[in-house]
């Protein structure tokens, strides 16, 4: 198979990780950064080559009867549980993984490049690149996984690299606790994923994606209608697996780690927490979509969770003051779009367009969200603050950044011809096709998206003109602006990719045709949102204040993200630590250990008690003697007779 070189995309980063991790300290910072970037560049080229070969290659067997085949390029046994349950490490190429290859390698390369400038002079620069390589490796491994367990493995690795990168500034307590939180929350979700895998593999006796998805009905039927607590085990398995995805993709209520994760360096946020890792959940569901497709309950759950999260995150995003937080919530909201889209994508409805839409949105979103984050990074780099209040009027100081950011905003708001418009439109189509309720709901959220994005935009680049003092913001260096420009361009044109030809749920071609009623509505809504934002935030004024005062309660609640963090805090500290761990520890010391000590003490005091027998008087001794002898005899007689 000539595509086997794809495996190099895994090998190069992992090698770079080890190399930079072990000998990185000895290298100069510059060398390390350049090495990392170059390696990433090579990886990107290979990834592109692989993806393009896959999509456009004319090799026989790639497309049969209009269906793109899944190609298992490589499959090495890594660990054998039983004869059938084997973890393999391999490379699976199919439309979505090829698409993800492009996304990941592009964004990752951009981030590498960008970081050369952004992270310049930071302590642990080498370490940073090592971790980036690790992340890239894990993420690529995740998307190329041939079986669900390989995916889980890389899933965990992704989690760890995310942990390491969030906690990159390990001397800052906030970063440390954010990284901890991120890891633990996703870990909790992964627990669901793991259990789901266990259940699934127990009934289907395989981990392999191909065998799982080629005949989903068979998989379902092997479960034999087994039920647990009223639901069929398959629903349980799929829901639990989705829980894993929800954790990674920050779906409500497992979203709380993502906003905190912004404590990490901004390029990391762009790479991991906007473009790639957080969509792993979406990817997971998409990967197993044929299974989900036959289980309506699981799909409904996905839809509800997605839709609610989309709304919730958008609402919160409207009032946040930290630009990265706004972007984070926006990310949550956008991913929720994709999830919803998958949820509503029953194959019988509109050719399962939701699936394609979701993937499409994933693709475009990765580009423009990375763009937005990188812009945010540049801005933060310039003003040394995350808070909106420290910004304003930056359009004069940072023109390139301004334009790029604007493109990003337009794209996310869904204004044609920017990328977001096309993908979001498809999602809305899918939603309407499923039920008008979801359609309307998602349209509203789309409007909110436009509003908060432009609120952000105006607040940064317009609003007022604060006093920057002696430190005037300036445009970022070339290494940072180049990725902005590149991604900006991509964001403009990506919408025109005939995505349906490449990625659909059954891997047959599907021609996208815009449904203008839906598209029109969405444009109008987006424009309304933008207009509203323009009115409120273009110039410094007190409308927002007044509004905030009017809806004080709501505003505060939203500002505090509806107290989700506090709730978690309460659960972890008050319940898990104080109500479970502490008592267990106490129980252990006092009761269990106490029992052991008690045994010893009882022995000791018994020894004290019998001491009196040894009175020192011969007569007492003799008394015991005779009584003992007689008692022995008497007891025996009584027992025998």
């Amino acid at each position, binding site marked *: 198979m000539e595509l086997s070189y794809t495996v190099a995309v895994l090998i190069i980063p992992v090698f770079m990780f080890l190399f930079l991790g072990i000998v990185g300290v000895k290298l100069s910072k510059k060398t390390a950064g350049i090495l990392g970037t170059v390696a990433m560049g090579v990886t990107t080229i290979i990834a592109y080559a692989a993806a393009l070969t896959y999509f456009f290659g004319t090799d026989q067997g790639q497309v049969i009867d209009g269906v793109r085949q899944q190609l298992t390029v490589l499959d090495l046994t*890594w*660990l*054998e549980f039983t004869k059938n349950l084997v973890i393999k490490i391999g490379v699976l190429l199919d439309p979505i993984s090829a698409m993800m290859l492009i996304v990941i390698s592009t964004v990752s390369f951009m981030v590498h490049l960008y970081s050369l400038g952004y992270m310049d002079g930071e302590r642990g620069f080498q370490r940073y690149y090592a971790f980036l390589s690790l992340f890239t490796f894990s993420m690529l491994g995740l998307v190329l996984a041939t079986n669900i367990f390989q995916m889980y493995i890389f899933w*965990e690795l992704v989690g760890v690299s995310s942990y390491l990168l969030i906690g990159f500034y390990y*001397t800052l307590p906030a970063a440390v606790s954010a990284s901890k939180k991120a890891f633990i929350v996703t870990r909790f979700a992964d627990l669901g994923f793991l259990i789901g895998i266990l259940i699934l593999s127990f009934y289907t006796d395989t981990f392999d994606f191909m065998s799982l998805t080629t005949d989903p009905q068979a998989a379902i039927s092997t479960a034999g209608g087994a039920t647990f607590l009223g639901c069929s085990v398959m629903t349980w398995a799929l829901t639990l697996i989705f829980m894993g995805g929800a954790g990674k993709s920050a779906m409500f209520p497992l979203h709380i780690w993502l906003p905190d994760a912004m404590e990490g360096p901004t390029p990391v946020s762009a790479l991991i927490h906007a473009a790639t890792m957080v969509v792993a959940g979406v990817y997971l569901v998409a990967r197993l979509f044929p299974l989900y497709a036959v289980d309506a309950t699981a799909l409904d759950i996905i839809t509800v969770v997605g839709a609610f999260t989309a709304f919730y995150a958008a609402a919160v995003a409207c009032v946040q003051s930290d630009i990265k937080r706004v972007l984070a919530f926006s990310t949550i909201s956008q991913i929720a779009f994709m999830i919803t889209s998958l949820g509503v994508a029953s194959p019988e409805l509109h050719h399962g367009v939701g699936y394609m839409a979701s993937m499409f949105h994933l693709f475009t979103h990765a580009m423009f969200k990375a763009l937005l984050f990188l812009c945010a990074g540049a801005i933060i780099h310039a003003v040394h603050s995350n808070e909106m209040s420290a910004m304003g009027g930056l359009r004069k100081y940072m023109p390139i950044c301004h334009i790029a950011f604007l493109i990003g905003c337009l794209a996310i708001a869904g204004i044609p011809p920017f990328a977001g418009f096309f993908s979001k439109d498809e999602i809305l189509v899918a939603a309407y096709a499923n039920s008008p309720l979801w359609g309307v709901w998602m349209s509203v959220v789309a409007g909110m998206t436009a509003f908060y994005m432009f609120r952000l935009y105006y607040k940064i680049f317009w609003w007022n003109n604060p006093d920057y003092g002696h430190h005037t913001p300036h445009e970022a260096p070339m290494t940072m602006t180049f990725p902005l420009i590149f991604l900006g361009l991509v964001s403009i044109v990506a919408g025109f990719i005939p995505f349906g030809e490449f990625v659909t749920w059954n891997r047959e071609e599907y021609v996208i045709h815009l449904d203008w009623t839906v598209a029109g509505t969405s444009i109008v809504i987006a424009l309304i949102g933008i207009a509203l934002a323009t009115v409120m935030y273009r110039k410094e004024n007190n409308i927002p204040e007044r509004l905030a005062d009017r809806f004080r309660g709501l505003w505060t609640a939203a500002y505090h993200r509806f107290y989700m963090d506090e709730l978690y805090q309460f659960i972890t500290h008050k319940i898990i630590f104080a109500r479970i761990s*502490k008592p267990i*520890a106490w129980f*252990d010391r006092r009761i269990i250990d106490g029992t*052991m000590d008690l045994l010893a003490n009882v022995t000791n005091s018994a020894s004290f008690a019998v001491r009196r027998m040894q009175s020192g008087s011969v007569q007492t001794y003799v008394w015991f003697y005779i009584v003992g002898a007689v008692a022995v005899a008497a007891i025996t007689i009584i027992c025998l007779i």
Partner: protein
Amino acid sequence: MLGGLALCKNMKQVRTVATVGASALMVLAIYLVIAFLGERAAGNDAEMLFTQGAMTWFEPLNIELALGVDGISVVMIVLSAFIVFAGVFASWKMDPLPKEFFMWFCLLSTGVFGFFISIDMFTMFMFYEVALIPMYLLIGVWGSGNKMYSAMKLTLMLMGGSAFLMLGILGIYYHSAPEGGQLTMNILEIAQNNAVPHSWQYFLFPMTFVGFGVLGAMFPFHTWSPDGHASAPTAVSMLHAGVLMKLGGYGCFRIAIFLMPFAANELAWIFLTLTGISVVYGAFSACVQTDLKYINAYSSVSHCGMVLFAILMLNTTAMTGAVLQMLSHGLMTALFFALIGMIYGRTHTRDIRKMGGLMQIMPFLGVGYVIAGLASLGLPGLSGFVAEMTIFVGSFQHADMFHRVFTIVACCSIVITAVYILRVVGKLLFGAVQDEHHKTLTDAEWHERLSTVTLILAVAAIGCFPNFFSSIITEAAEPIMKLFA
């Protein structure tokens, strides 16, 4: 006879150390390296099931000095070798009475090696006790903190376990052959005869299982572990948590389960419940501890609980997982304890509330600790993941709903593990430096690095190439688990 070799070498070292004294430390270390390298090479070859060379020892009770190894014991021996190796370096600068320390240390390792290579119940039991008793002095003399209490508690509790064990072994011996047959202590023969009456199995199985379970830190017999580990010197903690606790798991399966399959099947649920509790319970307990060693000790309770848990699932995969878990836990706990010892040696405190930001001061140790932590919480690519996944998958293959539900309960521990590991890592290594005095501390020295790196490499080796190990183990576990098919 690779095991015999290991035994001899150790004996020789004891003598060397005893005669040449403190100056022999160097020789000792070199000896160890050679012995273990050779052993590893030999161990890798010994994939055939049993290499036998039995010699009748006590003829009246038909006790043989039967040695033999299968895949499982081979990996256990490799594990022990690694940890002893690392332990020697970790205790490089043992201060008072180094000679005695290493003598006892060698005796301890002799017991451990002997235990793993024996296939005769008596010798096995003997080596088991040989391995236990040096602990008392090692902790008592070279330990820290409330060492007398801990040492006594540890010894007495473990000996308590071995009391049950001895009864169990004798009971098995007297039922080892069908009516009129030649009674035997040889594990293989007993298993072949499979003559222990069912009614007796009900009595003997709990005896042996609890006997070994005490050492395997099974709830509620685990309380020696936190105190003991907290007080023990570094190398002893390493060897104890790393290898000695594995004796429990190994023994459980080699004697309790292998010889009494019927009762194992019937009574598994009781012990499954206990071990399930200890998995979760240990993890929760670890969450609120403030002493590094206590945290680790409770984490050991949790992990070793997992070993016993998996063994009780009675299928090949889970069994393989259990052995992998022993390996993995052995290595990473040893790593943990080594690092804790090194940190303690510098900061003179183990209270995580009093430390912080050590990553800046001693990056090597910090990185080591993070790696150990990640291994512990099951990061793919390191050993913990492999072991735990094998256990979970294997356990979940059990046909019984009860077992599967318990597997899920046990799975929960991975989250809790993450909680306490990250808590420690966060408090200890990250953040600002808590104590100004700590800023002057140095990073690891060469022997410490050597010790740490050895263990890390081993952990990573298992994590990256698990199939190599798992196939060795599976091969050995399969014939045993056929008893339950």
